[in-house]
């Protein structure tokens, strides 16, 4: 159940140009129930503009260490925009209104042993959380991480050591020269679950790769995270819908994570 609370700013670390990892103190009851792929709505401009809270995926939720203590939420936040630019300038003790955890995250079934994660852009945050959860269950993790250039990649030190990480950049400045989806083929036979957080064209390419698959195995189920501009974050305004085979669904409540085969992508 989501909660409305006032989060205390702890610190921020410039992880990438114009992207910071922001740590917020949150009620223990919130930090304890986060599942990877869920998000929070975060506000806090002074005055009435910008007005709306912004959704941010939860990169890591650390439970309270002892009774009475708070938990910690880590977010990977783009600091170049209007909504969260101020987060990079926040000071210890500053507080921000937060609602969360929200939405439906990734689910790794009981029998999953090998998961393939595909991250492009800030989605790497949510997938770090998922990788850590998977590794904790002794699930083998391979991450395909894409970015336009090497400079736009989250430094690998932020990724769990035990995950296999394979990089692709559009300009070839690091790893594979091209898209993460070029690298799929070898993994479709390996993974028994695929989870992605990337721009939609990546999902379309992923779907095509699955269609092209001629191997012997039953294809692994694929879960992908969708993004839409949001107002309420809790499913009341119907501002964030996506088309699915079962009709329109809200990204904020029914998603952000959906089975790829249920989505009607452009």
């Amino acid at each position: 159940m989501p909660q409305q609370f006032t989060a205390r700013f702890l610190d921020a670390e410039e992880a990438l140009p114009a992207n910071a990892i922001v740590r917020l103190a949150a009620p223990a009851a919130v930090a304890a129930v986060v599942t990877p792929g869920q998000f929070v709505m975060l506000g806090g401009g002074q005055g009435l503009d910008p007005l709306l809270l912004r959704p941010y995926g939860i990169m890591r939720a650390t439970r309270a260490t002892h009774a009475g203590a708070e938990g910690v939420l880590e977010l990977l936040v783009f600091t170049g925009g209007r909504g969260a630019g101020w987060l990079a300038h926040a000071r210890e003790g500053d507080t921000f209104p937060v609602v969360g955890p929200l939405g439906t995250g990734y689910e790794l079934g009981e029998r999953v042993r090998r998961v393939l994660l595909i991250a492009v852009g800030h989605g790497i945050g949510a997938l770090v959380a998922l990788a850590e959860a998977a590794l904790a269950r002794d699930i083998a993790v391979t991450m395909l991480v894409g970015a336009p250039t090497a400079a736009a990649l989250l430094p690998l030190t932020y990724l769990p050591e035990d995950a296999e990480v394979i990089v692709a950049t559009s300009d070839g400045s690091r790893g594979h020269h091209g898209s993460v989806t070029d690298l799929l083929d070898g993994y479709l036979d390996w993974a028994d679950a695929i989870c992605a957080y990337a721009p939609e064209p990546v999902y379309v390419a992923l779907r095509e790769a699955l269609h092209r698959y001629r191997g012997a195995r039953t294809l692994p189920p694929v879960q992908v995270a969708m993004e839409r501009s949001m107002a309420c974050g809790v499913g009341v305004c119907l501002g964030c819908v996506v088309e699915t085979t079962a009709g329109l669904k809200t990204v904020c409540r029914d998603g952000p994570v959906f089975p790829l085969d249920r989505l009607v992508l452009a």
Partner: protein
Amino acid sequence: MSQTTAPTPQSPPASGSPVRSPQSIDLSVDLAPHNPRELVLRNPVLAASGTFGYGVEYAGLIDIQALGAIVSKGVTRRQRRGAPMPRIAETPAGMLNAIGLQNPGIRAVLDKYPPIWSRWDVPVIVNLAGDTVGEFAEMAAMLDEATGVAGIELNVSCPNVAAGGMFFGCDPGLAAEVTAAVRAATTLPVIVKLTPNVTDIVTIARAVADAGADALSLINTLLGMAIDVRRRRPVLGNLTGGLSGPAVKPVAVRMVYQVAAAVDVPIIGLGGIASLNDALEFFLAGASAVQVGTATFAD
């Protein structure tokens, strides 16, 4: 303090005056004083249509029983898919929305929610939108005996399909016609929600009050647009959308002030309310109750 205001002398606490706890103050209000079925709220703060779903969505997050009433998302005769995406855009101190009345239709709403609503203390008002006068009346009749429905709010900010798309709420005659038809179809309290996109809100308010509205609510959203400069096209899939939030408050307060001076029915003020101070502005302008919409998303 600007010297245009004379300083308010701090009055010392009047010793001996009874200390009233907030709970002991009677904030109740009847929004349909001329209707035998009345519409009594324990307090004058309502959740606005379209910003509170059917009430159930927020039930876990906030104490919905503390509200004076909940106005449902707009309901139509038949299911609607709504407008194409994107449906919302943030604007200075406000937002645009073009949800396009996505809803499962009145039958599905009546199947699903009245059993829940009738278990709540907080009254639920169903917001209706129709393509024709007949649709409005038909839906009102369907609600007349539904359990858990305390009243009806008519969203007349929608085009009359039978009259060339003229908005019901932009013409005094059409607005009166739909009000009278609904009035005849139900004994439930009927609130007519006025659109601000008009030259003369007072004439429309009078026409609607004379046609039998128990109360008026105003304002609905201002018609607006935002353009995505990078993509060189309107942000919203629907091109235009409704502007709401603090940005519109001055327009809303003005209209409530004008209408309150012109009609005898209770007025429910809304448009940009984000604080107690904002709500008080509307009460001072003449409102008997207020609704909070967009600000629900902002705190």
